[in-house]
């Protein structure tokens, strides 16, 4: 157990992720490769070590995931374009200041082609639909400066129909509220300047009740805590300016207790295997909680706040004030 975030160890953990090609699990997760690079890079940025991964190599890899038939990015070379990986590609290229490599008009038409008559977005041409993909579309269009091409009313209408009596949102109409959907729906509404759709008091009540006695947050009532929910819940709370409604110290300690002190990386909960997904969402949570020495993270886009500010896209979210490093 450590009460400190072991930044150098996590940086080296992320650097080594690309070196595990003799590990079967590495190959079995190729469908998440571009997402994983985005998670790793964002975690490095938040820890102030963006340079720890080679920029040119990363940009080349992203471009090798371009699916020229569909006009979007797949998760890996030769994989089909999908909204999840397309958003990751755009986020990486923006963080690396290399957006000029993208054929923006084609990506925009790929994204827009996936909107359904109901307003939700499908992830790809075969049409699984979900508010996660709606968020990917809204976030990507906004980052590309092309939000004006979106049918906003239709999009907001779908989110509104996913809202439940507990103030939360489901991944489709009729579905149970889930912390992950609180992030995607609230963040999408923030980007669309439509936070009026949120029942703030009820949702923030529901979100604050995600915190369990051990400090960790769960995704739904009567479920177990998990580090990744730190970000989903905190993101929505900070967009709605209610981070104070949970106990920040207890949550920070919970996240820190899920670190692997030997190999680096953060797990879903203490004692479990670490992965890059929980590493970024643990670090992101700590950044929102004002953990000393970290870089500000924009909870709407889950990217460094300075990058979003430079693009003029900052919304009115509020994180906890960054604490000075104690000696």
């Amino acid at each position, binding site marked *: 157990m450590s009460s400190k975030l072991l930044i150098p160890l996590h940086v080296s953990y992320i650097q080594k992720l690309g070196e595990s090609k*003799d*590990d*079967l699990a590495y*190959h*079995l*997760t*190729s*469908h*998440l490769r571009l997402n994983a690079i985005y998670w790793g890079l964002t975690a490095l940025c938040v820890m102030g070590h963006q340079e720890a991964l080679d920029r040119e190599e990363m940009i080349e890899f992203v471009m090798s995931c371009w699916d020229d038939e569909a006009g979007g990015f*797949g998760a890996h070379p*030769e*994989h*089909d374009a*999908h909204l999840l990986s397309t958003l990751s590609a755009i986020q990486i290229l923006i963080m690396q200041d290399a957006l000029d490599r993208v054929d923006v008009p084609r990506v925009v038409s790929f994204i827009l082609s996936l909107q359904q008559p109901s307003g939700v977005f499908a992830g*790809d*041409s*075969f049409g*699984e639909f*979900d508010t996660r993909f709606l968020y990917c579309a809204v976030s990507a269009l906004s980052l590309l400066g092309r939000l004006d091409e979106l049918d906003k009313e239709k999009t907001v209408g779908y989110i509104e129909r996913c809202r*439940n*009596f*507990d103030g939360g949102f489901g*991944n*489709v109409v*009729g*579905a*149970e*509220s*889930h912390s992950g959907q609180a992030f995607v729906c609230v963040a999408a509404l923030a980007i669309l300047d439509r936070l009026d759709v949120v029942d703030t008091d009820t949702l*923030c*009540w*529901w979100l*604050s*009740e995600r*915190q369990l006695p051990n400090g960790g947050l769960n995704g*739904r*009532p*009567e*479920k177990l805590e*998990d580090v990744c929910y730190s970000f989903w819940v905190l993101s929505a709370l900070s967009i709605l300016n*209610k981070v*104070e*409604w*949970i*106990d920040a110290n*207890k949550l920070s300690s919970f996240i820190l207790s899920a670190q*692997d002190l*030997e190999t680096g990386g953060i*797990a*879903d*909960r203490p*004692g*479990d*295997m*670490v*992965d890059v*997904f*929980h590493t970024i969402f643990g670090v992101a949570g700590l950044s929102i909680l004002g953990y000393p020495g970290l870089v500000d993270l924009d909870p709407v886009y889950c990217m460094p706040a300075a990058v979003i500010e430079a693009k003029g896209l900052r919304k009115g979210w509020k994180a906890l004030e960054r604490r000075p490093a104690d000696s």
Partner: protein
Amino acid sequence: MHGVKRTRQTADDIAAKKRREQSKIEEYLALTRDVLSRKKASDWSEDAFNLTTKLLQVNPEFYTVWNYRRNILLRGLFPQRTPEDVNNLLSEDLAMTMTALKAHPKVYWIWNHRRWCLENIPNGPGSQEDGDVAGWKKKCWDRELFVVEKMLDADPRNFHAWNYRRYVLAGMPVPRPETSELAYTKRKIEANFSNFSAWHQRSKVLTSLWSSDKLDKAKSREVEFELIRNAMYTDPDDQSVWMYHRWLIGSGDDQMLLEREISVIQELLDEQPDSKWCMESIVHYKLILIRNHSRSVDVGKLTGDCSTLLSQLQRLDPSRRRRYEEIAKNIDVGPR
């Protein structure tokens, strides 16, 4: 990765594991290369189809391969087959995804493929004239309900399964009466009061039944209050129950109902004097009384009650202290 325990391995262990995995990796990568190059060459053959089966059995999250598999069916296999053969092919795919779901009940791509299969079941075996045009469809969709109940028996909170259940219920060629869903959620709730997924589903079904006048709202709401009272007394710390109660109360236009429920909860609080959820709920409902019925209630007394409870809550539930403070501050400012 979720819920995988960390194990410490020595350098020797790691080296041994890597040696063991070496041939598996080579085999997997060779199969992947084969499938993806066939995909690139628009190979819609049965051979290619069988290779996707093999690959998806190893890695059911390979969404590109699921897409390729559907394209093989659509472009290569379906056009050459009779409707009966198409029906058989899809039934086999449904069986294959069933096996995959048993091992990976939370993989979106598998559920997604299942929906696609279901939606592509052809008309038949009969014709429009003999009235059995939807025979295959009916059989498949009925079976899906059975399948999803099995999945929910294994994990009653699996939201993929609940979503799929709603999808099947909404799409069945012969819809089931919604009242049977009410019975199903009741079974689930009685098996475990903490199953918020079932409470949630129940709220959706009742909303629909009430708005279509298939059920008398006032009467059926009383039945719900009875059910929830049992749950409240069984485990007053279970938040699912309190959330459902809040839904039942609704906007709080009914002053008598609010006052009755407040006194029911007060009784429970008297028995369990440190029940956070009793206090939290009483505050919430009394604030509604102040907001909606200020002319017919004693606002001063209610305000005082709420302030007292809120300061108790701050001590009892310190993690959410700031929320209680904020609510208390807003009462002081005056009712909205």
